[in-house]
């Protein structure tokens, strides 16, 4: 008798692609805890769903504008998040204000929910900064471009949270979780697996949030992992849950549950949000070379914004005036982003020396002095 893999379950879904909100199991392959998750977001009514829709629409508009700015030569690169708005906006709203987020380089929706200004995000992609914002302003750390390197950081940060006595006190306003974002491609990295194991061993309050968007540049998820990613959690000693990443409500519910567990001191959780990267990995690659139009169209039918709109319209939660207002606000955001990028000034050349070291460093000081002198010298004199 050959070994048999467990029957797959459907990811947690509370809002169907056609906009039907669910609160109890309806089919054979239904996720069994759907009622518990639905109860966790019972407070998310029409008003809150309109706010989620607005967030997703503005993030998408920002993403479209940034893509255009890259094509116009204003940005060196852009990593689009179109298609992943529900995963990111849902996760952002599922967290508590005091929680910390360690993002990858595509977390524009999470950055938005956390209050990071889109123009700050664009400094990195314009090449005018390696960061762009102060992590302490929004408990949102800097983007990390080395795949998966931020998971150990998040884990260590969570160990600090533990040592600061901010786990398991029962004070919902103080107990703190750390969200570590990564993708399906990053799941292949050693450090990601080290961090999962490490966090479980130390019961660190980490919500590992994997956005499985189907592709790691040109390699499909099947090339990264022979097993569903959320199933790895068991082997590391933590719960794993798969959620429909295009369902903003389900992601919020699952992240709330994972955050509650981490903050209580019960340890980490692995959340796999199954979603799809509708555009290329970045503006540097061509998705047409490695995937089909049919696949993209099938995901377009599961669009995260469309299902919220369908639900709101069907339940009289929003009318044309609302959607028109969001569209107008989106256009204003696009114009502000375009104008802001073009008005960005380059940093001073000698700013490269400013934070290489915190304490004075003789070599850096002498090289700074040399560049200052060089820049102050007319080219013909310098030679």
């Amino acid at each position: 008798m050959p070994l048999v893999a467990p029957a797959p379950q459907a990811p947690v879904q509370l809002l169907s692609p056609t906009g039907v909100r669910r609160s109890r199991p309806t089919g054979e392959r239904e996720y069994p805890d759907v009622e518990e998750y639905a109860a966790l977001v019972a407070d998310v009514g029409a008003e809150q769903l309109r706010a989620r829709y607005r967030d997703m629409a503005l993030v998408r508009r920002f993403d479209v504008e940034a893509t255009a700015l890259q094509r116009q030569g204003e940005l060196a690169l852009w990593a689009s998040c179109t298609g992943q708005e529900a995963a990111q906006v849902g996760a952002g709203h599922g967290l508590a204000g005091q929680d910390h987020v360690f993002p990858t380089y595509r977390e524009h929706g999470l950055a938005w929910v956390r209050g990071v200004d889109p123009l700050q995000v664009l400094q990195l992609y314009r090449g005018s900064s390696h960061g762009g914002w102060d992590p302490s302003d929004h408990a949102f750390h800097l983007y990390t471009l080395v795949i998966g390197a931020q998971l150990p950081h998040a884990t260590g940060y969570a160990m600090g949270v533990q040592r600061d006595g901010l786990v398991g006190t029962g004070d919902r306003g103080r107990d703190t979780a750390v969200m570590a974002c990564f993708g399906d491609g990053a799941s292949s990295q050693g450090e990601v697996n080290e961090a999962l194991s490490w966090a479980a061993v130390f019961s660190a309050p980490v919500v590992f949030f994997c956005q499985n968007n189907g592709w790691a540049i040109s390699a499909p998820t099947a090339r990264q992992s022979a097993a569903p990613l959320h199933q790895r959690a068991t082997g590391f000693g933590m719960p794993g849950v798969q959620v429909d990443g295009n369902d903003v409500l389900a992601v919020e519910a699952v992240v709330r549950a994972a955050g509650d567990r981490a903050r209580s001191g019960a340890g980490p959780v692995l959340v796999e949000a199954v979603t799809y990267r509708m555009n290329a990995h970045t503006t540097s690659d061509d998705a047409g070379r490695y995937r089909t139009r049919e696949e993209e169209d099938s995901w377009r039918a599961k669009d995260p914004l469309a299902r919220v709109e369908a639900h709101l319209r069907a339940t009289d939660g929003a009318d044309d005036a609302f959607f028109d207002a969001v569209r107008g606000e989106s256009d204003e955001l696009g114009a502000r982003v375009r104008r802001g990028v073009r008005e960005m000034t380059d940093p001073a050349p000698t700013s490269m020396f400013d934070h290489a070291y915190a304490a004075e460093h003789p070599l850096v000081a002498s090289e700074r002095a040399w560049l200052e002198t060089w820049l102050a010298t007319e080219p013909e004199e310098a030679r």
Partner: protein
Amino acid sequence: MSATTTRPTAPTPDQTASPTGAAATPAGASGASGASGTATLTLAKAITAALHDAMAADEKVLLMGEDIGRLGGVFRVTDGLQATFGEDRVVDTPLAEATILGAAIGLALRGYRPVCEIQFDGFVYPAFSQIVSQLAKMPARLAGAGQLPVVVRIPYGGGIGAVEHHSESPEAYFAHTAGLRVISPATPQDAYWMLRQSLTQPDPVIVMEPKRRYWDKGAVDTSAAALAAAPGLHSARVARPVSDARVSEGGAVTVVAYGPTVRVALDAALAAAEEGVELEVVDLRSLSPLDVGVVEASARRTGRVVVVHEAPVFLGMGAEVAARVTESCFHSLEAPVLRVGGFSVPYPAARIEEHYLPDAERLLDAVDRVLA
């Protein structure tokens, strides 16, 4: 042969540029015994004392590494510290070097001062990406919004008869990476104070600990007065000065060494002196930044320079020292700067490592060549 175990008494020349070592006097500086003052300690126990005293002085200091708790580390450097400070401050980690470093970065972002122990030099490479791409660069990315005061201790170098991957000299990788400070103490006193200084300043520090000197003994003064008298963290020192009279007799050579080869240089100096040749031994102490001022001052006096280290000569620290001295002291030099070091081969099996490691004889051969 005990020159390395005592502090130099002669004044150190030309330490003009040493702003980085201005460490605050730690509160309650005391030896591992709890008593302030001078004790004779091995280099390893001097590090133990420094860790103990730093942890006592600053509750944000914590240690992370493999087997550092109940075992006290494979070299017993952390012996007894977990019993004193508990499992949350002396953390026995999973066998995961990348995450020892990565978690330390996260802890530092949270306001802690992690000290990572890498068990052996050859095991640092799994953590290399976290060190050079994250630890070194993140302060610049943060642009003033955060610091990463992480200390990484790496026992390094050969000469203890170890097996593969246990005797390497990777210091140039780290010294080449901007954003890191790299130090290598050669004496128990320096091991104590350089570690204490590392744990009171804001930048990441890679501490290359010369493992074959772990058992060398020397006087360690843990008093606050000793800190005030200690050179800055980035400063070189003249471990064996040569008088102007000796130099003018025409038989003096500057030998630049650090970590495990300081004692090699001092041994060579004793042998050379018997033949009327004086070696002024400069102990770099800091590999990045490099205190070239001390080296240059000595080079200008002697006109002859030899650099010695265990790492392969090709693109090693000696290349940087030679280039700097040649650029700044060309008209004072009587001979090309020579380098003595390891070969460009993977570290050899222990039974033949004595032929790889530069010893006093190889150093003296180079001295003869710069005098020829």
